[in-house]
């Protein structure tokens, strides 16, 4: 048996081993890579962002999938929830599947850990599981009155009594639905809610289903789409660059203005900022633990925390004209002395992204390697096939 025949008859278990390594190694050892954002993702981000800080606008997330498609869809859900919590956007959630009920709780809890001021019934509201047989009447009913159609949230509270419902009546206010699905997404909203009420719809789908949704994107029936892990990675990036952006020294928590309205932090979407190389420091997915300052920046930073200057000075090191502070070297006693605000202000300048907010980007590293591997497999398989075919023709 020559080498080409061997290639053709390679035992599939070798292929499985290569696949396992190609996926596992990039997940275990992340490296920095940049995901270029696509128009469907940018459009969705901008649409959601246009609701920032508005009490009369809200979005609805429909979790229409079970746990099997979570690796692709869950990072999208987390990224969008994070964007909404960062930018003070009201969020509603529901599902038509009983098995997706816990996914909603899991997603909200995952994001909420980092936002202690976000409250159920005020900033977000989970309608919970609504049986699929009630999907059509619910979708249509919400077009007239959400509180009359859904009545209670997942915790059994009457919607009409919840603070989040102030200023929210129907699709005129809850003007965007995003459905996450492992199969065809958005159908119910598209067929019933959009023609009758003009509801805006977007979808988050697994990569294999993305091609099916392009006709609706082209007609404008879907205002945006997150396609597979790539879409999730792009949304994570946009949230890091814009939604989670803070000018050094600004408060971490959601602020409140003189009238009691919440101030959305972050900054608005801009293509120019996306193209700027300076954003790279917000995108590193490898662990970051050193806060770097130019001397002038350091002075501005400590001026915001004058009573902590001595501690910062004891922590700083000078390297190549830059001042660096390694947050891993801050002892527990020093953390206590600095306090929550000053330490987190410092920690924020390391630009270290928590794992849960960069899962999709780490996954895209694995997907990069896996795609290259599959292409190599296809090429090798075809080379072997044609050489073998040529030899057979020669022999005949």
């Amino acid at each position, binding site marked *: 048996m020559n080498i080409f025949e061997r290639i053709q008859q*390679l035992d*599939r278990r070798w*292929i*499985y081993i*290569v*696949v*396992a390594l190609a*996926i596992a190694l990039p997940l275990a050892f992340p490296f920095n*890579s*940049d*995901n*270029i954002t*696509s128009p469907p993702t940018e459009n969705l981000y901008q649409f959601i962002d246009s609701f920032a800080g508005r009490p009369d606008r809200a979005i609805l997330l429909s979790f229409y999938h*079970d*746990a*099997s*498609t*979570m*690796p692709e869809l869950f990072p999208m859900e987390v990224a969008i929830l994070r964007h909404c919590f960062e930018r003070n956007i009201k969020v509603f959630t529901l599902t038509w599947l009983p*098995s997706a*009920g*816990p996914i909603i*709780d*899991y997603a909200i*809890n995952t994001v909420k850990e980092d936002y202690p001021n976000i409250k159920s019934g005020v900033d977000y509201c989970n309608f919970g599981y609504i*049986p699929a*047989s*009630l999907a059509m*009447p619910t979708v*249509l*009913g919400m077009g*007239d009155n959400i509180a*009359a159609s859904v009545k209670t949230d997942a915790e059994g509270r009457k919607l009409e009594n919840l603070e989040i419902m102030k200023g929210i009546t129907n699709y005129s206010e809850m003007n965007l639905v995003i459905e996450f699905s492992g199969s065809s997404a958005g159908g119910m909203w598209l067929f019933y809610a959009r023609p*009758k009420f003009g509801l805006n719809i977007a979808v988050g789908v697994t*990569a294999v289903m993305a*091609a*099916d949704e*392009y*006709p609706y994107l*082209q007609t404008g029936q879907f205002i945006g789409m997150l396609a*597979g892990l*790539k879409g999730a990675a792009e949304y994570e990036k946009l949230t890091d660059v814009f939604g989670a952006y803070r000018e050094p020294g600004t408060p971490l928590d959601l602020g409140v203005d003189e009238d009691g309205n919440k101030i959305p932090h972050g900054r608005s979407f801009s293509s120019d900022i996306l193209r700027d190389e300076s954003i790279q420091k917000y995108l590193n997915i490898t662990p970051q633990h050193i806060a770097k300052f130019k001397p002038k920046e350091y002075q501005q930073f400590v001026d915001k925390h004058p009573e902590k200057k001595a501690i910062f000075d004891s922590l700083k090191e000078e390297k190549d004209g830059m001042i660096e502070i390694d947050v891993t070297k801050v002892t527990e006693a020093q953390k206590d002395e600095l306090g929550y605000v000053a330490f987190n202000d410092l920690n924020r300048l390391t630009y270290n992204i928590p794992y849960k907010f960069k899962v999709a980007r780490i996954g*895209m*590293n694995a*997907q*990069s390697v*896996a*795609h*290259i*591997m*599959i*292409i190599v*497999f*296809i090429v*090798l*398989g*075809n080379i072997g*096939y*044609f050489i073998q075919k040529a030899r057979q023709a020669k022999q005949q």
Partner: protein
Amino acid sequence: MKKTIPLIIVIAGGIVWLLWVFIPHRVMADDFYYKFYMPWARAMAPFAIILGVFSLSMMHTAKIRRRAPKWQYSYFFFAGFIATSLAGFIGGTQKGGLYMWMFENMAMPMSATMFSLLAFYMASAAYKAFRARSAEATVLLLAAIVVMLAQVPIGVKISKYLPNISQWILDVPNLAAKRGIMLGVGLGSVATTLKIMLGIERSYLGGD
């Protein structure tokens, strides 16, 4: 009579819903929809779940009783069903309870594992079966390679034009094919619906 009454229900139901969609009058919107239909729909939904649970339980009970092939696995259905139901009913479904623990540590990883097996089959199929045997297969193969490369960060490093070429493949040939299929399915659905509503198509009633 056994066929006439269901037929009348289907035809009347179809016409009522058509009227509801096209006539925005309060008789249809409020009296019919909110006061009549919604309470009935809410009342019916739990019966569907009860019916499902009964049907599934009866199927697995029969399987165990008849010692049908792989009947032992039916015990896992009952164990899983009872344990999950009890965990939810007794401890609640919120974070910190047994139900949520079971979801996070059992349901999620097991479901994800099953789905992730696709990657292995796809890689194996790509190697063993994806051959440029004809001109059409070669076009498909090249399109697949371009789209796969453009989907990942490394593709953009290879060529900055790849994402645009990939987007063109998705926006033009893919879109044309998908739209053709969808129009066909849509027209077929309308035709079948009309046949059912007019009583021409009656196979759903059983018999000939």
